[in-house]
């Protein structure tokens, strides 16, 4: 039925260069509207729920925007000014939440970069049951944050939780208030997050490790490199692009931490573990101070963008050396 002319492959590839819309062999490729008809459903979603909101968010941030009130007075940059004015009400709560996000990111990201790499290195060899182990380490990730957090809220319970019980059996303090005291709450939140997402970073590392050609290791071995030297001179350079990617997505994921804090510590003790995104959601969607919340989300976004650029730069810089 489908005849394949001999000349098809090069012709198919050359279409782009041959000029757009030019009829080939009397068969028009497609009408002018066709690409837009294919794009239309997605673009409708994209414009409504991504492009429009980005602009609308900036507009809201310039108003005192209460969802439940008819009047939404224009206030210029006041919402932003408040965030940087130590005298204002929103200053304290916003920066405390930014600090919480910062603390969480600072402690979770290094662990989430290093521990999964170690796991991936151990897994990066042929042995029986490898796929089974890979699946086991990945399993918590498919559960989602709500299940994971509700489960760990139980395991971390001061009185009847497994964690304190087994710590006691090991002769360690068995009365740590994991969810209501500092710094224990941070240890708990970081620990749970590592448990939850370790498998995710591991499988990305593992795929990258398997893409490093075996010959490179063999060449290094022939040159007399020991295991450590092979790691630094073959594995690390081979992983660099993936390392940049993993660093980026891990920082963004940690900076978006919400569910763990919402369900395990309820932002406590006090509001010490209430993260920036938690604060933004509560300010805008519970207290309906949407102007202020929108301004917060723009400030947080600006910080994250600067961080992303810095990471790109960091990994780029090293590559040229």
């Amino acid at each position, binding site marked *: 039925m*489908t005849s394949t002319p001999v000349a098809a492959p090069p012709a198919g590839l050359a279409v782009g260069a041959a000029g757009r819309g030019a009829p080939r062999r009397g*068969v028009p490729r497609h009408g002018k509207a*066709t690409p837009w008809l294919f794009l239309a*459903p997605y673009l409708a979603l994209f414009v409504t729920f991504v492009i429009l909101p980005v602009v609308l968010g900036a507009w809201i941030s310039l108003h005192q925007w209460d969802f439940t009130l008819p009047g939404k007075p224009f206030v210029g940059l006041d919402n932003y000014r408040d965030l940087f004015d130590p005298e204002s009400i929103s200053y304290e709560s916003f920066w405390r939440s930014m600090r919480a996000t910062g603390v969480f990111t600072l402690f979770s990201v290094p662990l989430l970069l290093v521990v999964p790499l170690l796991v991936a290195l151990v897994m990066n060899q042929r042995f029986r049951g490898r796929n089974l182990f890979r699946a*086991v380490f990945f399993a918590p990730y*498919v559960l989602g*944050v709500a299940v994971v957090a509700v489960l760990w809220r139980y395991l971390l319970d001061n009185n009847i939780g497994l964690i304190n019980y087994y710590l006691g059996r090991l002769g360690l303090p068995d009365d740590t208030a994991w969810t209501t005291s500092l710094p224990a709450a941070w240890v708990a939140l970081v620990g749970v997050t590592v448990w939850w997402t370790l498998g995710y970073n591991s499988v990305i590392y593992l795929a990258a490790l398997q893409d490093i050609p075996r010959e490179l290791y063999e060449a290094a071995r022939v040159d007399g490199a020991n295991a450590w030297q092979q790691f630094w001179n073959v594995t690390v350079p081979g992983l660099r692009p993936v390392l940049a990617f993993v660093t980026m*997505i891990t920082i963004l994921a940690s900076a978006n931490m919400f569910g763990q804090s919402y369900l395990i510590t309820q932002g406590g003790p006090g509001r010490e573990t209430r993260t920036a995104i938690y604060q933004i959601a509560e300010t805008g*969607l519970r207290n309906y101070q949407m102007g202020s919340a929108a301004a917060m989300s723009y400030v947080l976004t600006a910080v994250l963008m600067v961080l992303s650029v810095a990471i790109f730069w960091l990994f780029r810089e090293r590559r040229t050396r």
Partner: protein
Amino acid sequence: MRAGTAGQVVRYTLLVLLGLLFLSPLVFMVVTSFKTRGDAGGIPPSWIPDPFSTQAYESILTARGTPVLRWFANSLVAALANSALVVGTAAMAAYALARMEFRGRGLVFGAIIATLFVPPVILIIPNYLVVGELGWLNTLAAVIVPTAASAFGVFFLRQFFLSIPAELEEAARLDGANAWQIFLRVLLPLSRPALATLALLALLTNWNDFLWPVYVLFSPEMQTLPAGLSTLQSANAVRYDLLMAGAVIASVPVLVLFAFLQRFIIEGVSRSGLKG
């Protein structure tokens, strides 16, 4: 030879210990869900329910304020609808971007890719208003439609389409097939693995989504399972038997899916990352 064997022993010991660390909390969740109220709060914690009881399940499945079955149905409808919407719209858009020449293509693709780097936090407040204007607050549409605008699917499928040789499509075109027919009968059948991967990732992401449903679905009967678990937790502070039963109900479908399709899921993630 000997060093190799010792290495294997060390490796397996490490992996088994780590495996236990990952599996035991899940086992304990299931065990606790079959305990009685007193047994679940008992010290020392036991790994075998005594007596074995389905009380927790009966209790949460019949409680008025926490309609778990309804949440389950909501989650299922939302995840399936969202997954279909993601795959359908992304495949069509990716086809146009991968295979058609038109003015503005670079701009459209650039704009879509740029949003991969926009932190989602910026969309929360304005999207709440957009969804409100559409009259979708407290309806499943709020958790089905907006997240389908994610750029990931378009990017993922476009990359896959580009890897398929264009000859078959050329042949079909010469046979008189139009763009829509080529898309449906040539490209989509060739892309089954990629479509399945994207469908699964979208399904999992939607099933597990937490922040957005917590704020846009307020009445108990409209919630999805993750938002419902939060409601369940505030209603039953330390009734861990009930909470674990709820957690098991929310976990079983994804764990079953994972058990059968883990290759698709893990390979999908390892090749391109999963973006919510």
